[in-house]
Structure formats: C-alpha cells, structure tokens
C-alpha cells in the first residue's frame, strides 16, 4: 500500500492599485510595457518603497489562514538571472515571512481535512517573456506587482483535495477583496510538491510540478504524478527528485530540471528595505479587513434562514450574491423564496444578459418588492417571472410594471366571490352534477371564473373559494400503472387495465368525508415495471400543472409496488415542497384478483381510500401510504418483510440508520420514524433548466439524464473493465451499490473496481456510492473504503440506491454542467 503527500505553493496577485515597490498601476491586460517606471524596470540608482496596502492585504490573508503574524517581517533578495526579472533578483521573504503556522479546513467527499499552512510571504512578481518566432519579447507590466505566496505542508493526499483547496482559496481571496482568484489569467497560480511512499514510511522523494494554470489541471497533474511515482516504486525504481512541467496538451508531466541543477538563490536580507514592524494601528487595519468567510456564512445561512446546504452554497459562492441576498432579507423578503428565485430565474436571466448580481438593474429593493407582491398574492408565479424579465428590460420597479401592464391578480375574496357566484348561477347543471358527487365540472367552473376575470384570479384563492361555495374538496387520483389498476387475464396472468371505479368501490366507505369529490385520471395503461422516461414526464407535468393551476386540493398517485421506491423519491425531489399533498399508493395484486371468490378483496381499495383521506387531510408534500402505514418517500425499500393480512410491512424505509457524524444519533425519536426526513437532503426542485409543466421538455431531459446514468451492484469477482465499456458508451454517472458502509474490491486485479474507478477519474465520470445493506456509506472504517475515496468515489451517506438514483436524475435536470451535478449529489 502506498501513501501520497501533496503540498501546494499558491501565488496570489494582490489587487492593489499600484505595484509593490513603485507607483505604477498594477493592472492586467494593458498595452505591453505601458505600466512601467525606472523602479520596476530596475534602472540604475532606484530604490524600492514598500506599498503599505499590499502589506495590509498580505497580513489580512495570513490572519484569515490562522497564521501566527510576524511582528517583524524581513524582505530578502532571491538571486537568479532571468530576462523577465528586471533586477535579476526578486525581493521576497525567506527567514522571516509575515505569517507562519496557520491552517485551513477543507472537505472532499465527506472527508474533512485540516491543511497546515507552513508560511505566507510577500514578494514581487516578474514580467512575462513571450517567444515569438526567432524573437523573445518582454512585457514588464506585471513586474513588481505584489504577489503573496502561501506554502502548505504536505497534508493533502489526492489531486481532488488540491482542487478543493484551490477553489477554497479562490473564494477566500475574492471575499477578502485581495484578488480575483482567476487562475486562467494568472492572478492566482499554483505549484505543487508530490511524493509517494510505502504507507508508514514518511515522505518520499519530492517532485515539484509547475505550470498548473487551472484547478482542474492541478487535479489531473497531481493524480498523474501520483500514479507515475507509484509505478516507478512498484517496479522497484527510485523517484528522482526534480522539477516537472505539466503539459496540458498531452496530459502528462515532463522533466524540467533535477535537483543537481537546481538554483542556489543566495538569499540575503534586502538592504534597501528596513524590516517591517507591525504596530497597533496596522494590526487594527488588518482586523478591519477580515470578513465573514464563505464557510461561516454558509453555516449561518443554513441556521438563520433555514436554507438547504445547496441553496446556501449557491448564495455564498460569490460575495456579491450573498450580500444581495442579505440585503433583500433585510428589506423583508422571505429567505426561502429569495434563495430559490436567486438560484433559478434571477441567475438564468443574469447569465443570459451577461450581467452580475449587484451590478444589474435588479436592486435588492426591486427584488424584495417582487417577492412581496408574490407573497401578498398580488401576482402569481408565472406573472412574477414575466415581471422579473420586465424589470431587466425596462429598468422599472415591479409595482410600476404590474400597474402599467394590468397584471395584478384578484386577491380580494369578496371581489373574487362575486365572480364565482355569477359563474355558478350561470351554470346550474354543472353545479348540480358536483353536488351529486362528480368532480369533473369543478375544473370547468374554475375555467369559467378564470375566463370571466381575464385570468387575473389568484388560483389558490379561487380553488379555496370555489370549494367552499360548492362545499366540496377535489382530489385527483392519477392512475399510473401497476397491479392497483391491473386486471387478471384469462390465462391467469396480471396485465394492465384501468383503475376501478372509485365511486362504486367507495360507496360503502363511511370514513370518507362527504365533501370529497374524486376525479380519476388514467395517465398511462401499463404495469409499473414498464416505466419509460416518457411516462415519468407525463406524471411530472400533470402534477406540476395541477399544482400551478390549483385544480385540486390534493393528488393521489396509484402506482405499482415494484418501482414505487423510484417514483416516490423522484416525486419527492421534484415536489417535496408543493403546497398540496401528493400521496403515492400501490397494491401488489389487482383489485379484481379475488373477484367472485369468498376471500377478501385485494388491498387496492383500502390503500386508495387511505391515500385519498390522507390527501384530503394534509399535510402538504410528498408521502406514501400503504396498508395501514404511512412511509417517507425517501429510502423506501420494497422488501416484503412480513406479509400480514393488511400487507403492512411490504415496505420498509431505511431512514433510521444512525448517522455517526451527527451527535445525538437517531433523529427519529418522537416522530413516526418512517417520516423522519429532517436529516435527509431536501427537495432540489425548483431549479433552472426545465419547466416541469412542459411534458415534452421534461421527457427530453429525463431521457438524456437516464442515458447518462447506470446502477451497478458490487459483487465478488466483478470485472472493472465492463464498466469502462459502459463509460465508453456514454455513461457519466454510476450509482454504485457497495457492501455495508462502503467497501468493495479495489485490488490490483481485473476482478475489482480499480480499473473502472481510474478510468472514470481520468474521464470525469462520477461514482455515487450506496449500500447493499442498511448502512451509512461514509468510507470511514476500512482500508478498501479509503482507497475508494482516494480514487474519487463519492459516498451517498444514508441514501438508498433508488433515492440516490432519482436524485441523480433530478440533479441533472437542474444543472448546467457535471460539476453542478456532483455538487448537488454531495449536498446532503
């Protein structure tokens, strides 16, 4: 077994107005050699004068990295000849850097890591030499810009962690306002030291890698270098201590110089600059420069505003977004809706217009006003989206736009009731039909009121008022395949059929509320094992439309037992926050299976009856009813554990797994265990990308998402190369069902996951890991688990395979790229 050690040297160009030792402008992208003077050009006789602002920023960063700040820091000359270095020495710090012994905490795939900071020192940057044909050109604009170098201890293990650390740094420096953190433009740069050795033998021979121009290259280069060194050691060789350059075109590192030819920099204290001594005034300035960092702000957002990790993560990613959010909150906006609007429609519009939060015409004031109008019911969601677009288009306030466009909804119950009364009077037959028990005419009557109000009736209010006028409660029962709607054919096999006539079946059910009006909608006719993306698209769009138009007070989905765990979790990810109850139910045999016999009828009728009652009574959100039990839609397992007379126990939920990471253990005490969702990830819709009412769009998106993912169960003797074949055929995400808390074979044999994981890591394929047993996957216990983590497998914690899989599908619908999918998957 080998261990790897990675240390980083991160260079940050400080965003001062002027250079570190002269008054020249420090700017990127100006005409070559336009920001230069005798000092930064190293003319004879000139002297450096330290930029105090650069020093302040440097100390702010060191302080943020928990370093011990030096009361006295000393500049030294680092001597080496290179044409882009005007003085042929670089003024840097060596023996007495400004900060030492700090640390930063990161987390990769649930594994937390404290990375120690060896030191932080300030220096001047060099110019740039460009080779063009047979000429070498020099641009000294960059020469003398302040550069902060942060050196970590070799505390990282895999390239992915280095990538996470760099992203952490990027965000940190942007928050502190000391750098834009742009690696492509070189304002943040990174060199890495890598060594590999047998476990327990300490550090190996160190190789330095340069030319890492993005955090992605850092990850690739480090993982390449780790396996290169491992190969050498495995063949009995010795790793040469050297400097290597990352070749991003060939994805390999190439030798640059060995230790023997390394520079002797002949450091000595810079006689032109006195030691920098910190005084109280300076230290106070440094303290003033500290800000609440993204991680702390994220935690606060989750705690103070009840946001999900993902919402909080999105908001804090850019300081301007987080500031915008908090300004909106202080102006009275609801945190939940502000967060979801910012992450979806606002983000979409800003991206489309190439603008950024805080610098567009959408001020926090206008945004808060929009949410207030929505909250007061003066506009509904669809109109709100139009208003938002109009704010950008016409640079006007939402209230002014609504007034000008006549978009304000009727939210006054009295006013709306007047319309309703008129419509009911005009259609006595329909009213009579409803009174007789039919639900269908309710939709017709709602449509008439909408027509009468030119669509300005507030849908939810309309639904409530019309229900109370008619004294009915409308529940829509969507038939979505399965034995519950199946029939036993003449050959004895069960095939698809239509849902039985509820009114007939429920005739004798006295437990049903009198005001209940049921509408049965046959969405598809198949057995639920036959679900295709198009079917889910129908289900999703039909539910979405009913929620949006407030057509029903509740929805029941009649489903088959076999795939219920998938559809239930899928609907939860989509509609977990819906304002009406969405209840799934099922039956394992058709209603008519025992027809004509003496035996009791199947559980189908009882289950639908229970589901309807539950849908009518609330609470809102997605639930599952089976037998006498209510289950959580997440982590449902179809296990047929004990078949009682009422078939209770056909399902179990795996929600009660103790989470070793959360203090206090099981969260389920008190509440019904099966419903305990508090420690589970929240719904992820709404997200930008797909409009759920658009069946065709949902279908296309689902088909694309499904063609990119695959479920694999680990088994002894599994060949990793079979998964490579799948990856070559377009699979980008696996849900990998491992043993127990996340173990599987990663031995060096074809009959293990190793080859697949390595191929996947090199090609950006993700492995989201669940358990075959009822266990929390966190890779904490076993050597093989740690190897899986090293190779990039992502633990799914307490999610079952089915729930992880549907989350993966919905995550893809709401994401712009694979990185975002990964982020959603890891947000638990």
């Amino acid at each position, binding site marked *: 077994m080998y261990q790897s050690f990675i240390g980083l040297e991160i260079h940050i160009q400080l965003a001062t107005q002027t250079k570190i030792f002269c008054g020249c402008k420090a700017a990127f992208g100006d005409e070559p050699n336009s920001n230069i003077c005798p000092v930064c050009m190293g003319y*004879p006789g000139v002297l450096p004068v330290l930029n105090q602002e650069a020093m302040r920023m440097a100390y702010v960063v060191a302080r943020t990295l928990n370093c011990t700040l030096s009361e006295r820091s000393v500049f030294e000359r680092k001597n080496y000849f290179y044409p882009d270095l005007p003085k042929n020495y670089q003024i840097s710090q060596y023996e007495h850097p400004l900060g030492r012994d700090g640390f930063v905490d990161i987390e990769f795939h649930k594994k937390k890591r404290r990375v120690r900071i060896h030191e932080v020192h300030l220096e001047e940057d060099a110019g740039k030499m460009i080779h063009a044909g047979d000429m070498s050109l020099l641009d000294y604009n960059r020469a003398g810009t302040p550069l902060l170098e942060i050196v970590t201890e070799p505390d990282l293990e895999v390239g992915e962690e280095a990538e996470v650390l760099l992203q952490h740094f990027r965000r940190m420096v942007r928050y502190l306002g000391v750098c834009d953190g742009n690696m492509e433009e070189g304002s943040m740069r990174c060199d890495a030291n890598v060594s590999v050795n047998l476990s327990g033998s300490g550090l190996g021979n160190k190789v330095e890698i340069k030319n890492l121009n993005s955090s992605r290259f850092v990850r690739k280069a480090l993982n390449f270098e780790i396996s290169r060194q491992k190969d050498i050691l495995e063949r009995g060789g010795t790793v040469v201590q050297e400097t290597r350059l990352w070749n991003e075109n060939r994805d390999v590192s190439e030798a640059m110089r060995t230790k023997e030819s390394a520079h002797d920099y002949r450091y000595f204290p810079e006689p032109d600059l006195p030691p920098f001594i910190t005084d109280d005034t300076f230290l106070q300035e440094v303290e003033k420069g500290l800000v609440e960092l993204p991680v702390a702000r994220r935690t606060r957002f989750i705690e103070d505003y009840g946001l999900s990790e993902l919402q909080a993560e999105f908001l804090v990613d850019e300081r301007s977004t987080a500031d915008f959010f908090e300004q909106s909150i202080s102006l009275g906006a609801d945190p939940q809706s502000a967060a979801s609007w910012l992450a979806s429609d606002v983000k979409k519009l800003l991206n489309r217009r190439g603008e950024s939060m805080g610098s567009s015409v959408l001020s926090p004031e206008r945004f808060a006003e929009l949410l207030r109008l929505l909250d007061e019911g003066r506009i509904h969601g669809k109109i709100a989206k139009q208003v938002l677009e109009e704010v950008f288009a016409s640079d006007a306030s939402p209230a002014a736009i609504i007034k000008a466009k006549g978009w304000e909804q009727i939210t006054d119950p009295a006013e709306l009731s007047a319309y309703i009364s008129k419509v009911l009077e005009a259609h006595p037959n329909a009213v009579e039909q409803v009174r007789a028990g039919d639900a269908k005419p309710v939709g017709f009557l709602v449509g008439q009121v909408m027509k009468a109000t030119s669509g300005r009736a507030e849908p939810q209010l309309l639904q409530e008022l019309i229900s109370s006028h008619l004294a009915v409660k409308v529940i829509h029962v969507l038939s979505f395949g399965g034995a519950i709607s199946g029939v036993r054919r003449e050959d004895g096999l069960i095939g698809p059929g239509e849902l039985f006539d509820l009114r007939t079946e429920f005739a004798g059910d006295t437990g049903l509320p009198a005001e209940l009006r049921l509408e049965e909608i046959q969405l598809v006719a198949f057995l639920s094992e036959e679900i295709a993306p198009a079917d889910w698209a129908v289900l999703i769009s039909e539910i979405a439309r009913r929620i949006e138009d407030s057509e029903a007070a509740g929805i029941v989905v009649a489903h088959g037992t076999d795939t219920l765990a998938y559809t239930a979790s899928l609907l939860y990810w989509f509609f977990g926050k819906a304002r009406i109850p969405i209840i799934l139910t099922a039956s394992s045999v058709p209603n008519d299976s025992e027809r004509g016999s003496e035996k009791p009828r199947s559980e189908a009728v009882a289950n639908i009856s229970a589901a309807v009652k539950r849908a009518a009574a609330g609470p809102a959100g997605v639930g599952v009813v089976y037998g006498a039990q209510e289950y959580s839609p997440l982590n449902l397992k179809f296990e047929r554990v004990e078949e009682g007379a009422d078939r209770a126990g056909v399902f179990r939920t795996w929600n009660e797994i103790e989470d070793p990471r959360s203090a206090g253990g099981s969260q389920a005490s008190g509440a019904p265990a099966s419903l305990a969702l508090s420690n589970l990830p929240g719904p992820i819709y709404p997200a930008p990308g797909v409009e759920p009412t658009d069946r065709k769009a949902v279908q296309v998106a689902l088909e694309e998402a499904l063609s990119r993912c695959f479920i694999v169960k680990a088994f002894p003797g599994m060949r990793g190369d079979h998964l490579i074949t799948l990856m070559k055929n377009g699979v980008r995400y696996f849900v990998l069902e491992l043993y127990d808390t996340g173990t599987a074979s990663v031995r060096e044999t074809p009959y293990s996951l190793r080859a697949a994981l390595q191929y996947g890591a090199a090609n950006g394929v993700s492995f989201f890991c669940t358990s075959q047993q009822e266990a929390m996957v966190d890779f904490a216990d076993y050597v093989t688990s740690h190897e899986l983590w090293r190779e990039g497998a992502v633990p799914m914690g307490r999610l079952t395979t089915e729930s992880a899989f549907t989350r993966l599908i919905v995550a893809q619908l709401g994401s712009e790229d694979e990185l975002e999918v990964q982020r959603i998957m890891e947000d638990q």
Partner: protein
Amino acid sequence: MLTFWKNVLENSPDAYEKAVRARDAHIGAFLEFDPKRHLGNAPGEVASAEKHAVLAGLPFGVKDNIAVDGFRLSCGSRILENFTSPYHATAVQRLMQAGAVPVGKTNLDEFGMGSSTDNSALGSTTNPWNEEFVVGGSSGGSAAAVAAGLVPFALGSDTGGSVRQPASFCGVYGLKPTYGTVSRFGLVAYASSLDVIGALSSDIEVLQAVYDVISGADAFDQTSMDPEPIGRSSADASAEDVLGYRGKNPCLGVLKPDQLELTAEVSESYQDCLEGFRSLGYEIKEVSLSMLEYVAPVYYTIATAEASANLARYNGVRYGRRPDFAENPDELVRLSRDEGFGPEVKLRILLGTYVLRSGFQDQYYLRAQKIRTAIRKDFEACFGEVDMILTPTFPRQAFRHGGEDMSPFEQKQADKFTASANLAGVPALSFPAGVRQGLPVGMQLVAPAFGEARLLAAARDYATLYQPEFAPGYERPAGEQ
C-alpha cells in the same frame, strides 16, 4: 572666492565653460561637462531658507554614479557608457532647489570599486598636485574637480572611504554623513547597506550647507531618515549643547600609532595633528578599536555580496550595452556582462557570489555580519568615552598610477580607517592636515551617528591652525580673472 562662484554661471557661463575645459584637459576630472544644461532648470520650488542661500548659483560636479536628469549615468563602466538618466537623484534635486547648478559628471572607479579612479573604463584622472599620482577613489573625479578649482563642491559617494580617501589625496574636505541621513535615491548601488552620498569641497561652510540641504528623510528611500540632534538640550542652544560634548572641552580619541602601518609622512602628520588639537584645548585620550584588523575582510565580504546582487540588473536587456547579436536571451546576458564589466568589477561580483552561496553563508556572509555588529559596538564603546575619534584617512599619501607603489590588495587593506565608519554607519570627515613631499595629507574625524556638526566644528577649529592649501597653479578658480 565664494563671491566669484556665486556669480560665475550667471555672469560668464561661456568663459567658465572654456576655462574648465582647458584645465580639465590635464586633469580629466569630468566625464561629461555642460554648465548650461541645467542653468535655470531648478525642479520644483526654489528653497528660500537663509541657510541655503550660500548655495544659490553655485556650480557643482556630480560623481557619475549619481543620477542627474539629462546627463549620462555611466558609473565609469562600458556597460552604461551611453546610458542617460531619466531622473534626478534626491540629493541633486535638493541642491538644485537650493539654487545650485549641476554642471557635469565626474570620473570614478567603475561602479565605485577602487581607490584610485584608475579603474574607470571611460577616462583617466590625474592628481592636480602631481600628475604622476592618482587622485584616489572612487570619487576621484569629484576630488580632482574641487582641488583643481573647477567647481566649489562636488557630490561623491562613500561605501568604504570613496569620498574621504580622494579628498585626502587631493587636499580637500570630504564628508561621509551618517548612513541614512542622505537619501540614496539616484545613487547607483554598489553596496546598499554601506553606500552614502557625501560631498567634497575646499570650503567648510559650503560643505556644511550642502550637508544641510541634502540630508533628511526622503519618501523614495525607506532607509533614509531625518538627522536627530545629539545635543543635550535644544532650548539652551549654546554651541556646546548642540554638539553634545561630554565635558567642557571636546574629547578626542586617538589610536596608538605603532600598529597602524602608516608611512612616516602620515605618521608624523597624525602626531602633529593631535598635538594641534591639544593646543586648541581638546582633550586627547588614547582609545583602541580592537576590531580594526577585521575591517577590510568584513567590508569586502559584505560589500561584494551586496554588489553581486546590485550589479545583476545590468544584463543588456532593458538598457545599456549589449552585443549586436546573440543566439538566445541567455547568451545576450552573458555577452553583455562579459564585454561590459571591467576586471575589478568582475572580481568583486565573483567574490560576492562566492560568499553568498548556500552552505557557505555561515562561514562568510553571516560571520561578516556578526563582526560588523562587533565593530559597531566597538565604536559605541569608544563614543562612551570620547566625543570623536581622530585617525589618518589613509595609511599613506597618494600613490603613483599603475600600482607600482601599492598593489590592489594593499589598497584594499588600507581601507580600514575609512571603511570602519561605513560598517558602523557613523559619520566621518577627512580634512586637509598638511602637505608633505609635495602631496597633501588628510586626517579623519569620526563621530557618533548624527554627529556631523561635531566633525565640521572640529575641522573649523583645526583650520585656525592650518588653512588648507591649493595645488600649485590651482590657487584660483577656473575662469576667475
């Protein structure tokens, strides 16, 4: 004489120029001379303070390692032969603001590295007292220009004695101020922790005025500072208090002459001089500088280490001499430096690179720094007992061109009296103490930091006994009718 100097540029600049050119044809003090280039060109506001009035109108020479906008800044080196400065050194700018006019650039040992000015790659300078003898160095051109009456004063730079030693060879005053009191901005660095801009003059009042004008903190040099008065009380500003003497009479420390390896002439002069001070009422006290024998090795270790970095910037890439053709950037740098630097400069760069190698710093550079601290403490201990120390400026008088009297190694060894003041950062003044065998002898006074006023006061006192002489034929300023 001062009246002449104050009016010459205004009244007869052409005659002055002609006279200087004629005289300098024999001396070679100037590398570049143009008295009219900066006439009426004072940058910024002209200072009107009374104490500066003495400088108004005076022409002055500037050692060619100090920047004067529009004049070349060759440092006596091929590598900068055609380099023209785009800016003024702070010291030059302050003198111009006080009304003085820089008229030309004076010769020097290349980059200030030498004791004769014979190490200049761009011209030879000869001693006005006797053309067979060197002027000293490295500020030899400035010393010669003053001694030959070409200018009333000149700026020099002093890293290990480069103002004081040529002053003593030419029979003029040479002041090395406290390290940091004069901005080094515009002084081409040789050894940054030792370099100081100083001044040479045959007139002690002019020297005082120059020091007053050029000293003081400068935003362009973070190692610069305002002089702090060392007097006990500024409210009761009697001369004694301002100078901060410990007793009623100034107390002068002197060294035992037997181990100083002086020539007979210098040794005699030293005795005469201390007796002279005694006759003026100075208390004479023998002191010992135990570290004196380490001064030259420590000085050359530190100076060359810093020089190896300071001179790294001359690579032919951005300015200065470069070859017509080079295969690649590395070769361009190599050829530029090979062709551009003279042998003494190369020697010192190599030496400095050697002492800074990693793994050898403990043995050389860091050890030298420790001894430097000991030398500073040595001086501090002495100044606990005496107000000033009197030493010879150099163990001998001017030597002949060509190194037959004194090898380059002996020249380096002989820097011990002057270089010790640089290592300690304290002010020192070389003043004319007499003429022997037709050549001047200079003595050096060293004071604690910021003690420039003491040095000048003592020199003024001594001038009552011995009024400095001019070289034969140079008794009158160039151009004076």
